[in-house]
């Protein structure tokens, strides 16, 4: 495969890192600070997009920074999968920064400079993870992301966020140090390399089936950001964070980095062939299915909107793992593209939750009946986002779910197809009532008079409309992403 050496991936990572000192120094001038964020975000997105044509031509962009040990360098390699993820993360960062301006100012939060600085650091780490050429680099950015998100999760600095922060770190750091690190070092000591390659890094016979099983389990559970049960409890806990954090990081960046890592492990470290030879896909699929079903059920019982979304996220993440674990082209496509589809859908939902909170101060679903009349745009967007998550047209989510189901058929796993269908049903069950109540329910305080539209401010409204719109667009034009995935997985 043709490779091009370029510093663009590095720049794309660093641009939001270098803006941090500027942010800190301009902390007393919020407008200047926010414009810098915007500039950095734009440059970042442009840098990412500028690499897109090259990738679509089937080339790869590589950059080796530091050779730590033979086969384990700190290096970037931009391929289809990474590109897909980077586009999603960079574009949503831009949207979210607009949204967070509105949100943070709307609530007059404290420590805004700290907030935006760590936000920028987190997004740098996310892009770094997307462009990682090997497992070591991926692990590096994974850890940086974990630590950078901690101050965001605990932003309120009260007793509640302290507990959540503690749980967050216990799960994320505990698993990554306790499971991923040894597994990674074991891989390195066996093979002498950690470079991702579609054929896997293990030569034939290097790995026995029990060893492979243990390693795979260590990785799947170890990347706890993916929220595979039972290592999922940090996610609902982390919902104490301000909504932009929940939106970008817990629906998009953090959890997706976890899933993305698992995708990389399955496709780049083990390789599809090795896993299907050992028939390990079914094991991962089973784990994922359990997570999907259980968390959907839990979501049903949640009254706080953000928590319901969090559980929904857990189940949706497992879709991705599930799809990749199918180990068939359709399944892989469906799983990976769900990264993008779910990202746009879920971020819309979170934006809506935040907008509702800012505009009305309401957090619980039971308080929201009739709210759709006051906030029609928000609820419309919510509807579209929910469609995407459930997997119904005309939203992008349909495309990925369709492919997943085809994948199960392709792999002749009918039981698992039933799981998918059942869970879609559950998804619908916990989302649609909100919308129904919102539009047609009766709110407590309102009288009979004409309903006054009382939307949140524009900074909040525009982003959520935008993401909802993209979600629909993706239903009609998923081709770029599909192509990227096919290039990335070598399926062409």
């Amino acid at each position, binding site marked *: 495969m043709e490779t091009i050496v370029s510093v663009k991936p590095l720049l794309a990572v660093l641009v939001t890192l270098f803006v941090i000192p500027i942010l800190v120094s301009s902390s007393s001038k919020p407008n200047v600070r926010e414009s810098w964020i915007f500039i950095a975000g734009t440059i970042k997105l442009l840098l990412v997009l500028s690499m897109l044509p090259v990738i679509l031509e089937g080339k790869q962009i590589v950059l080796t*920074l*530091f*050779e*730590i*040990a033979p086969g*384990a*360098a*700190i290096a970037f390699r931009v391929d289809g999968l990474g590109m897909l993820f980077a586009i999603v993360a960079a574009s949503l960062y831009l949207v979210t920064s607009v949204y967070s301006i509105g949100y943070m100012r709307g*609530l*007059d*939060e*404290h*420590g*805004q400079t700290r907030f935006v600085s760590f936000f920028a650091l987190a997004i740098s780490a996310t892009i770094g993870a997307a462009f990682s050429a090997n497992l*070591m680099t991926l*692990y*590096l950015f994974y*850890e*940086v992301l974990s*630590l950078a998100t901690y*101050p965001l999760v*605990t*932003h*309120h*600095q*009260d*007793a509640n966020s*302290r507990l959540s*922060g*503690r749980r967050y*770190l216990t799960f994320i*750091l*505990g698993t990554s*140090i*306790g499971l991923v*690190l*040894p597994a990674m*070092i*074991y891989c*390195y*000591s066996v093979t002498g390399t950690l470079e991702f390659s579609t054929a896997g890094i293990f030569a034939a016979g290097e790995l026995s089936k029990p060893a492979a099983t243990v390693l795979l389990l260590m990785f799947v559970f170890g990347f706890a950001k993916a929220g595979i049960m039972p290592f999922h409890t940090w996610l609902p806990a982390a919902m104490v964070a301000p909504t932009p954090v929940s939106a970008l990081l817990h629906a998009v960046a953090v959890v997706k980095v976890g899933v993305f890592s698992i995708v990389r492990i399955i496709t780049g470290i083990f390789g599809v062939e090795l896993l299907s030879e050992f028939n390990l896909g079914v094991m991962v699929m089973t784990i994922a299915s359990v997570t999907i079903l259980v968390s959907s059920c839990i979501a049903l019982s949640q009254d706080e909107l953000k928590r319901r979304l969090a559980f929904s996220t857990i189940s949706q993440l497992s879709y991705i793992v599930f799809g990749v674990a199918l180990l068939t082209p359709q399944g892989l496509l469906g799983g990976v593209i769900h990264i993008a589809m779910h990202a746009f859908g879920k971020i819309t939902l979170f934006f809506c939750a935040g907008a509702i909170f800012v505009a009305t101060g309401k957090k619980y679903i039971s308080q929201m009946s009739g709210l759709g009349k006051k906030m029609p745009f928000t609820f419309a967007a919510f509807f579209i986002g929910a469609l995407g998550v459930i997997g119904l047209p005309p939203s992008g989510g349909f495309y990925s779910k369709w492919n997943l189901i085809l994948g199960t058929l392709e792999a002749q796993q009918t039981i698992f197809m039933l799981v998918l269908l059942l869970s879609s049903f559950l998804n619908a069950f916990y989302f649609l009532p909100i919308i129904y109540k919102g539009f047609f329910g009766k709110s407590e305080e309102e009288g009979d008079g004409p309903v006054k539209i009382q939307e949140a401010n524009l900074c909040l409204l525009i982003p959520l409309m935008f993401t909802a719109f993209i979600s629909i667009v993706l239903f009609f034009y998923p081709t770029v992403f599909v192509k990227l995935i096919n290039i990335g997985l070598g399926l062409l």
Partner: protein
Amino acid sequence: MDNYPALIVVAPLLAALFAGIAAWIEERLSYPIAVIGLAISTFSAIMTLMTVIASGTIHYRMAGWAPPMGIEYRIDLLNAMVLLLVSGIAFLNLIASYKSVEQETSDRAGSFYTIYLLFVTGLLGVTATGDLFNLYVLIEITSLTSYAMVALGDKDRGPLASLNYVFIGVIGASFYLLGVGYLYLITGSLNMMDVAGILPALKGSSTVLVAFILCMIGVWIKMALFPMHVWLPNAYSYSPVAFARMVAPLMTKVMVYVMIRLMVTVFGFEYIFETLNIADAVVWLATLAILAGGVMALAQKNLKKMLTYIIVCEIGYMVGGAWMGNQLGMTGAILHILNDAIMTFALFLAVGNMVYKLKKVDLTDLKGLFGKMPWTMTGFVLAAFSIIGVPPTCGFFSKWYLILGALEKGAYHFAAALIISSLICAVLFFKVFEICFFEPMSEGHGHGESHSQVAIEEAPISMLIITGFVSLSLIVVGLYSGTIVNTIILPFLK
């Protein structure tokens, strides 16, 4: 100029003497003299390292006598690196120390700098020398100075801690001296290379075995390997901050260096790992050291004490790595000498800044420190991440090599201990961070107090700059650890 190897050691010694004289005549002169002395030393160390990398091992004959007769400085890649590390850290710390010395030992600053320089001289000499007995004398210089310093710091409990340190320190040094005596008796020589040349013919001798065990026990006591660590926490936490910042990162590391030097250069891998069968036991001991250090650190209520137990834990890393008996483990151990020195230094620098402002560093005193001392805390956080082993800080990379070495040897318990200690350190430091970050608890959800910033009360700028520099170097050294391994450690081990 060919005299750089001697200058590394002699410059601080001369400076110490001039500072000692100046202390009686014009005390203000002591500090600049000390700075000049260490600057020359650091410069010479850099030149030496470059020469060694460019043209191989340097032999410097003291008094011009050929090695087995006279004392020789034999500077290869390993000690060139450690020399630079020691002189560099001592120099940086000296710059950062001006204010804290003024605060803590203002009436005897001149004598303080004299002792400080003598201590550095001792460490540098231990590192540079190629003679077994010379090593002993220099170890005693470092010990004697640190006895004095420990007693000087905490006026209340220091003297007793120091006296206990004296007892254990003397036992350690004497064991080493005995070991050298046994070696001398059987080989008739004191020069390391000479002894190494004679030893292979005496493989099965019980005398050599006892000599080896005695030397190792002596060095272990001096480096505070687990059951022999009791002196360290008190001694380090009671000494004056300016001294603790240097002794904590350097003393144990230099002793680890001595151990590696004895293992690699004097006795040889072949003897240790093929003739003797104690490597497994030592690795187990190291495993215990790691776990015990971590657990004891968890029980501490004072930040300084906690960090000293982390040093005990880190010693286990290096000893285990060195006794792995393979190249990867040894690489990890040597790399960890460098990394651990820098990260402990960074930690203690940050703690020094805190002590400067807060006087006491019990965990409960640290409330709200992120707001009060943001820069210090940034340094502290980076250093803590390095101890935990978060990439890209340097602590991760040495851990990487250590675990690889353990896996290659099949010492899974050691690998597990490394992982567990990372987790313990994570718990430890996040406990500290939580106190600094959350307390005092804000009311409600923190809304509406957007601009009520806590007044920043930072340490003096000289201390901050050094803290920042060292903390950043954690990342730089981490990223370049591949280069360090390839240019220094691997050529050394070949």
